[in-house]
């Protein structure tokens, strides 16, 4: 079980990049389908995650499928940590 504050923090970063709080309430929101995330914003989020958690993600090795929804983003980051 992962601490709730980790998920909260991830969602907070996601909401900041996406400029909508919907990502915090609807964890199954298809991020790319709804154009909540795009290439630029994905990269912004990668940078913020590095700053916040010290976790380096290489855009050259990144696949969208792993961040399909807010829930998927949290799961992917938990795994990476």
């Amino acid at each position, binding site marked *: 079980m992962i601490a709730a504050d980790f998920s909260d923090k991830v969602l907070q970063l996601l909401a900041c990049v996406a*400029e*909508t709080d919907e990502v915090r309430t609807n964890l199954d929101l298809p991020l790319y389908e709804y154009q909540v995330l*795009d290439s630029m914003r994905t990269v912004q989020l990668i940078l913020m995650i590095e700053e916040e958690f010290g976790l380096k993600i290489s*855009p050259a090795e990144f696949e969208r499928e792993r961040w399909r929804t807010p829930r998927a983003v949290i799961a992917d980051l938990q795994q990476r940590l």
Partner: protein
Amino acid sequence: MNVIERIDHWAAVAPETIAHISGDQTLTYGELSKRSDALAVYLTERFGDDRSPIGVLGHREPEMLIAFLGTAKSGRPYVPIDTLLPRPRVEKILAISRAAMLLSAEEVAQLSRRKIRGRRKFLERNAPFYILFTSGSTGEPKGVIITLACLEHFISWMLAEQQFAERAEVFLNQAPFSFDLSVMDLYCSLATGGTLFSVNRDLIENPKQLYRALANSGVTTWISTPSFARMCLVEQKFTEAMLPRARRFLFCGETLAPQTAAELLGRFPRAQVWNMYGPTEATVATTSIRVDDSILQKYSALPVGRAMPGTQILVVDQNCHELPANERGGIIIAGPNVSPGYIGRPDLTARAFFERRGQRAYKTGDLARFRDGLLFFEGRVDEQIKLSGYRIELGDVEANLRMLPAVRDAVVIPVIKNDTAQSLAACVLLDARNETSDFELAHSLRTQLSDRLPTYMLPRKFVFLDMFPMTANGKVDRTALARSL
């Protein structure tokens, strides 16, 4: 030699040299020349003396280059239109430009394969060469006419200043052909027998493939918006090791942050970084400066440099009187690179263009000041903004929003972070509010708006209000709205 003759020259001396790479498609100079001739003959046969513009609809296909040159060789201007544009916007562009036809990449592929005998060229220096549409403040796009003479002036300057090696350069093409930054890479490449390497939409959406493609590209001259380079810099492997031949990074279209320039110089020690400035109305770029360590140390906001030879930049007050150095004013550009005006809009043309001492001049609406003989860009006088290099009139987005059935009124505000517009926010008054959530409603408005406007012009955030805050003199208080976001 004019630019078309230069391209045909490369086709004669090096027909097998690759002119364009886009995805898995390639085009040689020999094919480009022969097939654009065939298209020119077709257009001449079909339209005779009617020199109306030809719309060209596509993305980064090699056929786009064939269409541009074929249209030009037939003595007609081309109007590049990206497939991203929604159909109603395309129709508007065709109507405003009174285009004789719209050529798709598929049609060009067929028409340019016809066998032809003999050919005549119809190039005139002062005739329109291309027409580029940009956002207009009332919701109608406006078409900037660029003549062969304008283009020649710009290209000659670029070639003289940059000294590109002939038949040895690979130019990065990041900007869509409907955006005039692409004119820089396209014609600098073709004029010097270089190879144009396009990054298409699929690559931009798939970073993994993008970096792989860049690593295999052999790019020597990088031309992009600063936003695109910033995105690439997030990848730590984006260094000289990935692009070992990169020698130049040329930026135009939006403000170049000193951090971006410094980081590039650090990661690409053998490359130069250049900052450039210019509106579409003055053919891509009018000023330039090489950004090196001394410039970075001296200035916290980067200068955009000095004007090209033969062209003047004036910083003026509201009465069009030239201001002394260090004072902020509006930028006027006067010289042979200035457009004749907007197609079909003598009213807009008269408002922004005039003659000055025998030269064509354009009031840019940009603010700047001269310091140490260098121009420093400082924003706009009006509601025009740049978003990832795209030029957007806020009034254009507002006018299109107001045309949606549920919307009574709308004001669009740029969301600014670190002094840069990051996205658009729409403040909307609705006719009636139903039960759906704000998010659903925003999504629905965004989807409806995407039938009218390209994706880069769509607001990200929607705020639903009962009324707009007003200023003392009865105008919508945009500053208050911006603060409330």
